[in-house]
Structures are given as structure tokens and as C-alpha cells.
């Protein structure tokens, strides 16, 4: 008798536990309002990334096409993957001295791991992260970017 009661109890408790599980899924089925799916390419316009989001490294330029990069090469040394390469040139300053300046700040997005060491260690805060996250391109060469815009100058007062 004991065993029959146990047997029935086992069945009823088992079914009860299954029903509890079904309650969870069922309650979500009848509450479509809880769905959190984002329809991604359609909501591109109102998709706001967090301001600290590490999309890609950029060099902010002001409206006079000036940047803060002095070409010191600290970011190049600090990059663990060698994704930054700095090609410098020597220019003549106004008072006739020879000075090292940046020619090209080459950034290989395909090798970047977004560790933020370059942005962090830059002594003149010349680098920043943009919120751009759609990096897919058809040609791999497009992932090698030159961060300083053509014809850009070093901002006044930045050493």
C-alpha cells in the first residue's frame, strides 16, 4: 500500500513540477509585450550607442582641420598587436627650426583588439573612440585607415 501511495505521489508531484515549468513559458507566450528583440537594421536611425563604446580609433579634428597628434609614437609602442604605424616627416616651423611631425597615422582596424591602450596613453589626447560599429567591408584593404585627414595640421599649443 505504502509503495502504491508513493508511486502515485511521485506521479502527481512530477506532473505538478512540469506544469510549473509550463506556466513560465505559457505566461511569456501570452505576454508579447515583454519581448525585447531589437529589429536591428530597421532601428539603425534611433540606435544610440553608449558614449564610451569602443567602436574604432579615430583622431578628432577641429573645424580648421587640425588635430592634436604630435607623432611621438607612444601609441605605436603601446599597441600590443602592431595595428598602429606612424610615419613621420620633418617640417620647418615658423621660426625656422626642423621639427618632427606626423605624416600618416596608419591604423589597421582588422588587427585592433580594442584594448584602449593607445587612447589611454596618448600624452596629448589626440586619439578617441568613435561609436561606429558597422565595420564590415568587401575589400580588406579598406580596413587600413589613415587617421589624420589630408592636409591637416597640428593644433596650436599642443606639444
Amino acid at each position, binding site marked *: 500500500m505504502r509503495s502504491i501511495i508513493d508511486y502515485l505521489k511521485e506521479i502527481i508531484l512530477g506532473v505538478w*513540477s*512540469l506544469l510549473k*515549468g509550463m506556466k513560465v513559458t505559457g505566461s511569456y507566450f501570452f505576454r508579447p509585450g515583454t519581448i525585447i528583440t531589437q529589429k536591428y537594421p530597421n532601428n539603425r536611425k534611433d540606435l544610440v550607442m553608449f558614449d*564610451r*563604446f569602443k567602436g574604432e580609433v579615430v583622431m578628432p579634428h577641429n573645424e580648421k582641420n587640425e588635430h592634436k597628434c604630435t607623432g611621438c609614437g607612444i601609441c605605436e609602442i*603601446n599597441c600590443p598587436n602592431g595595428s598602429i604605424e606612424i610615419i613621420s616627416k620633418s617640417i620647418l616651423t615658423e621660426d625656422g627650426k626642423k621639427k618632427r611631425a606626423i605624416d600618416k597615422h596608419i591604423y589597421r582596424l582588422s588587427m585592433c583588439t*580594442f584594448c*584602449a*591602450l593607445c587612447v589611454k*596613453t596618448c600624452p596629448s589626447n589626440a586619439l578617441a573612440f568613435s561609436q561606429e560599429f558597422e565595420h564590415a567591408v568587401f575589400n580588406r584593404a579598406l580596413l587600413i585607415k589613415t587617421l589624420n585627414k589630408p592636409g591637416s595640421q597640428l593644433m596650436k599649443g599642443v606639444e
Partner: protein
Amino acid sequence: MEEKVKNITTDEQQEYVINMGPQHPSTHGVLRLVVSLKGEIVKSVQPHIGYIHRGIEKMCESITYPQIIHLTDRMDYLSAHINNEAVCLTVEKALEVEIPDRIKVIRTIMSELTRIQSHQLWWASFGMDLGGLTCFFYGLRDREKILDIFEETCGSRMIVSYNCPGGLMYDIHPNFQKRVKEFIKYFRKILPEYDQLLSGNVIFHERSKGIGKLTLEDAVSYGITGPSGRASGFSCDVRKHEPYSAYDKIKFKEILFTEGDTYHRYIARIDEMWESMNIIEQLIDNIPEGPYAVKMKPVIKLPEGEYYQRVETARGELGVFIISDGNKSPYRVKFRSPNFVNLSVLNHIAKGFKIADLVAIGGSLDLVIPDIDR
């Protein structure tokens, strides 16, 4: 003699060898298990690893200490923040830098958030291993909330790189405390649903109770740490035994069971999520003021010697062993990764169970393959 040889061959002929992986839905990555079966019974499991071996230990020997941080993210990508912390703590210990309380508290909160999100993903994939596909979506849905907190503060979701030797990369975001509190409130309400859906389910009980038993002796001998080891009664919580960061200031209990089967490995992790929420709640309202990073030298050079630091990741004990020769890059770095050790027990505990149990046992050990391979 001849008869004996004959017997061996017939035994081998009866074995049915299947390759689980490198691409298989239940190995969660590129792990290959060569499983010998007799019918449905597992005779032996031989893990074959190395499919994503990147030689992180070798790479560390040629880069500087701050650069190591971003490699450790990629070992156990689910405990990325804790791995970062391990290296930072080792470097700070070697340099004997005093870390302000603010950094310690933030690190602890982030570690516990990391632990929760890791366990959520584990719960999701463990449910999927057992065939409950709905678990996967619920787990990921809730994990998303933590990842958003990470993204707001650290700038990235999974591979956070938030630590640096001497402190943190940035200060916490102004919204951080509010969001964490919101999350805790939300997750305290949601976590019982996990129990209703999976833990209380009679099918789940049948599938997990008494499966893959690991005794305390074996757990210690195999070095199984983390929730898997604690389910066997192995008190191995580094947060208790060798407190780092702010763990010495807070109250929490170590989740310990004695049974050591799949079910208790599962319950240990669910309980750890509750415990992590308790830890966060103790800290989130009293983050002390202060700097978010200590000024370090531009080139960090560790004094000559050997340094070992243990931390508790979501999967067990991570040890960072650095041998320094005084240069700016380490002479030798060894990561004692918890998953690598936990994998070694798979053959021992899966033997004699069915192939479906092997999947359940593998899921309950919570293996992250890049951490095994490094």
C-alpha cells in the same frame, strides 16, 4: 597467450568510437572528445584539445605588462574581468603598490557581475544541452542587462579590458550604481523562474541527480575548483581562503555541497548567483570616493622574482604565475586555468554513464574552450 590477444581484439571491435567535436553542438567550442561507447554506455572519453591554441603564454613573454591584460580577456572570455584582475593583482603585488579602496570595491562589484553573467550563460547553455531550448533565450535575455552595464562603463560588452595595473581604465559611469541596482531588483524576481523552468523540473532531476558523481577525494586530487569542486565539498573558494580586492570586508558564504553530482554542480551555481547579488548589494551603495587609478610608471618593470596570484573566476581558481627577470616584459607567465584542470576529470566521472549523461556532465563542468587551450 594467444587467447588473451584474441579477447582484446573482440573487445575493441565491440567498442563504438565516435568523435564528438571539434564541431558539435554540445562541446561549446572546438573541443574534440573521442568517446568509446558500448551501446549507449560511455567506456572512455579522451579529450583532444588545442584547436584554438594561440600560445598566449608565449605571447606574454614578448609584450609589456599592461599589454598582457587584453590577452587574458581572451582566455576565459566569460570571466574576462576577473582574468584581468588576476594579472593586475599580480603586478600590483610585485610592485607593492597600495590600491585605494574605491578601486577595490569597483573591481569586486565588476567581478561579481561578471560571475553572474557567466553563470547566466552557463545556465542557458546547460539547459540547451539537456534539450530545454527555451532556457537559452531566457539566460541570454537576462545576461544582456549586465552586458549593457559593462558597455556603458567599460566600452565593450564581453572583452572588457577594464583593469590596468594600478587601477581601472576609466571611472565608473554616473549611471552605474543606478543600473546595477535596477538589475539586482529585476534579477531577484527572474531567478525563481529559472528554478521553475529547470531546477524544479522532474525530468531535470532525473537527468542530473546521481549523474557524474565526483567524490571529495577525487575532486582534490584532480584539482577541481570552482562551483564544480564545491559541489563535491571541496572548500576551494579563493575569495574566502585568500581574500583579494574587497572580499575581506564583506560577508558572504561559501556554497558547499557534499554530493558532487551534476545536480549539485547546477545548484551550486544557482546559489552562487544569489550570493553574488548579496555581495553586490553590500557594496553598491558604499563605493568610497577617491581616484580610480594609481599613478604608475610609464614603463612597468617587475622586480626580479616569482609571483603567484590566485583569484576565483566563475569556473574556479585561476592562478597567474609570473617569473620576472626585471625587464619590462615577463620572463615566463603561466596561467593555471580552471577549465584546463576541470576538463581532466571528464573521463573519470563520465565513465559508465550514457552518452546523454556525458553531455549533461560536460555542461555541468561549464567548460570554456579558449581557456583550456590558451
